[in-house]
C-alpha cells in the first residue's frame, strides 16, 4: 500500500523526468513504432506517385516560420525526398520572409542526400517574394516574369529546369507547407483560376479546417501535423524526424494515460483506507 501513498504524494519533478526521458529517448534511439496511414495522406502520396519522372516540375512552397518547424519541416523533407527519388524536378519558393532560410535549408538537406541531383536541373530555389496572391497570379501569367532570377540572384533564363516553363500548365502540382491560411490562397489561385493541382501540409491544429477542401477535391491530398508526416515517411519507406517524433508523441501520450490510471487507482485504494470523510473535504479540484 505504501506504493500508492507514495504515488499520490509523488514529487512532480519525477513526472518531469519521465516526460523528458519519454521524449528524448526515441530521439536518440528510434523505436520505429508502426503508423497506420490515413486516407488524406495516401491520396497525396498517390498523386505524387502519378507524376511522370523527368517531366513537369512541382512547386514546393515552404511557408512556415520557426514556431511551426517541429511539425512542418519533417513533412516537407518527406515530400521532397519522394520527389527527388522519383526524379520529379522541384521548384522551391516561399511566401514568408521568415520562411526563406527554412525553405533553403529543407531543399539543401534533401539535395545532399541525392548526390546525383544537380542544382538548376533537378531542383531550384526561387527565394522569397512579397505579396503572396500576386505571386500566385503572376505564376499563372508568366513564371519567368514573376521570378526573373532565382533565390541566389542567378537569372532564370540560365536555369534548365525553367526552360519552357511558362505558367501553371507546365507545372505538375503545387505543394504548400504552412502554419497559416496561405494554402487557401493556393487553392483559390492555382487551382480555381488555373486548374493546377494543389496539395497541402498543415499543422495538426489546422488540419480539421482543411478537411473540407479535401472532400471537394480542391486539395489532392493533405498532411496534418507530425502524424501526417510520419505516415508519409512510412509510405516512402524512409523513417525520418516525424517517425521519431511520433515515437516520442506515442510514448508521452501513453505515459500520461498510465499516470492518470495509476493516480486514480492510488486515489481509490487509499480512499478505502481513510474512509469517505476525507474525500468530502477534497474540495472541488478537477471540476468547477
Amino acid at each position, binding site marked *: 500500500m505504501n506504493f500508492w501513498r507514495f504515488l499520490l504524494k509523488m514529487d*512532480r519533478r519525477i513526472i518531469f523526468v519521465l516526460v523528458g526521458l519519454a521524449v528524448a529517448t526515441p530521439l536518440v534511439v528510434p523505436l520505429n513504432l508502426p503508423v497506420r496511414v490515413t486516407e488524406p495522406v495516401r491520396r497525396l502520396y498517390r498523386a505524387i506517385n502519378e507524376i511522370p519522372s523527368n517531366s513537369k516540375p512541382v512547386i514546393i512552397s515552404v511557408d512556415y516560420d520557426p514556431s511551426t518547424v517541429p511539425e512542418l519541416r519533417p513533412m516537407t523533407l518527406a515530400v521532397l525526398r519522394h520527389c527527388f527519388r522519383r526524379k520529379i524536378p522541384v521548384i522551391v519558393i516561399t511566401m514568408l520572409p521568415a520562411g526563406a532560410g527554412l525553405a533553403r535549408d529543407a531543399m539543401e538537406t534533401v539535395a545532399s542526400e541525392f548526390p546525383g541531383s544537380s542544382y538548376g536541373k533537378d531542383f531550384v530555389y526561387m527565394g522569397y517574394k512579397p505579396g503572396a496572391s500576386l505571386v500566385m497570379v503572376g505564376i*499563372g501569367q508568366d513564371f519567368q516574369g514573376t521570378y526573373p532570377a532565382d533565390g541566389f540572384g542567378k537569372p532564370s533564363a540560365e536555369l534548365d529546369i525553367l526552360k519552357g516553363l511558362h505558367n501553371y500548365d507546365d507545372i505538375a502540382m503545387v505543394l504548400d507547407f504552412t502554419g497559416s491560411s496561405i494554402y487557401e490562397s493556393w487553392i483559390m489561385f492555382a487551382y*480555381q*483560376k488555373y486548374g493546377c493541382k494543389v496539395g497541402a501540409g498543415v499543422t495538426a491544429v489546422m488540419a480539421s479546417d482543411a478537411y473540407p477542401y479535401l472532400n471537394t477535391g480542391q486539395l489532392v491530398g493533405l498532411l496534418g501535423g507530425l502524424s501526417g508526416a510520419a505516415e508519409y515517411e512510412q509510405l516512402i519507406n524512409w523513417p525520418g524526424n516525424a517517425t521519431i517524433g511520433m515515437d516520442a508523441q506515442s510514448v508521452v501520450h501513453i505515459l500520461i494515460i498510465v499516470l492518470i490510471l495509476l493516480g486514480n487507482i492510488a486515489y481509490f485504494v487509499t480512499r478505502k483506507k481513510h474512509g469517505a470523510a476525507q474525500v468530502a473535504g477534497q474540495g*472541488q479540484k478537477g471540476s*468547477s
Partner: protein
Amino acid sequence: MSFAGARLLHISLCVLAGSLVLCGQALCQSAPPDTPPSPATDLVVKDTPDDDGGSVTLSWSLSADDKGGAKDVLSYEIRRSKSPDGPFTTIKKVLKGTSSTTDEKKVENNVDYYYQVVTKDASSETPSAVAGPVRAHVQWFNLGRLNTLLITILYTALLLYFISRAKKGEKLFVRRIAGLDALDEAVGCAPEMGKPALYVPGISTISDVATIASVNILSGVARTVADYDTRLIVPNFDPIVMTVAQEVVREGYMAAGKPEAYREEDVFYVTSSQFPFVAAVDGIMVRERPATNLFIGMFFAESLILAETGASTGAIQIAGTDAIAQLPFFIAACDYTLIGEELYAASAYLSRAPLLLGSLKGQDWMKMFLIGCIFIGLVTLNVGFAGFKSLFDLPLTIFR
C-alpha cells in the same frame, strides 16, 4: 562576332521561325487562329449597397469561351465612361472566371457612369454591350446590419430596464457562483499565512473586454486585501492596464480606509512579450510565495505554465477567463475557475451594487430571447420556411 550582332541574328531567326510557324498554322487550319473570344453578357451595374458612396458594383455572365469553351480567355477589362458612346477608359483588369467586381477608382457620387466589360484572350478582345447609366450614392444606413442594430437596441433596453428596476430598490436574486465565493475565502487566507496575494490581470490590452472585467474584479479584491492589511502584487503586461490597475487598487485601499497601506511599486509593468512575462511571473511566484494566486482576464498558451508553477508553491489559485481554449487548463490546475460569462458576472456579484445586479437579470433575459429565437428558427425551418433563419444572415440581404 560582336554581342549585338549575335543578338540581332538571334532575333531575326526567331522572327523567321515564328512566321514559318504562323504560316504553317494558317495553312493547316481552316479557321483563323485568332478568333476573338465571345463577349461577356448580361452586364448589370448598380450602386454598391451599404457604403458611403464612391463605389459601383458590376456583375456579368462569363464569356462562352471562359472555362467551358475554347479556354483561351485570359482576363476581363472593366471600362468606364461618362457617356454611353464613350470614350471608355480602362479602370481595372480581373482574372478569367471572375464574374463580378467593384469599381472604386475615383467614382464621383451622383454622376452618371456607363460601363462595358471587355473579354480578352492572348491577342484579341471583345467588348460587351454597354450598361448604365448608374450613379454611386451615399447610404445613410447600412441595411445589411439592421439585425445587429436591432439586437443592440433590444439588449440596451433590457439592461436599462432591469437596472432602473434595481435602482428603485427591487430585490434581485443572483445565484451563488462557486468560484466567487471561494474568491473572498482565498484572498482572506493570505494574511493568515502572512503572505502576499498575487493578481495577474491577463496578458491583453485594455481594449479586450475581458481585461476590463478583470479590472473590475481587481477592485473588489483590493478592498478585501486592504481590509486584511496584506500586500497585493499585480504584475502587468500592458502599460495602460497597469495604470488602470494602479487607480483601482489605490481606490480599493482608500475604500477600506487604509490609503497609507497602498504601495504603488506592487502594481508594476513587466513586459509586453508573452513568454518573458511568464518567466518573470513564475519567478515572482516561487520567490514571493504568495498564498493566493488569481489569474483573471485574457490568457493564451501561458495559462498552464502560470497555474502549474503556482500549484507547485501550494498557493490557492482562482482563475477566470473567456479564452475558451485555455479554460480546460485552468480547470485542471486551479482550485476554482470562472468560466466564460461567469467572469463578466463576477464584477456585478462582487460589488453587489444593485445597478450591476440588474444587468445580470438583463443578460438572462437576452439569453432567453436567443434560446427562443433558436426554437422559432428550428420550427420554421423544419416546416420548410427559411425566412426566419435568414433574419440572422450577415450581412442581412432580405431587404435588398
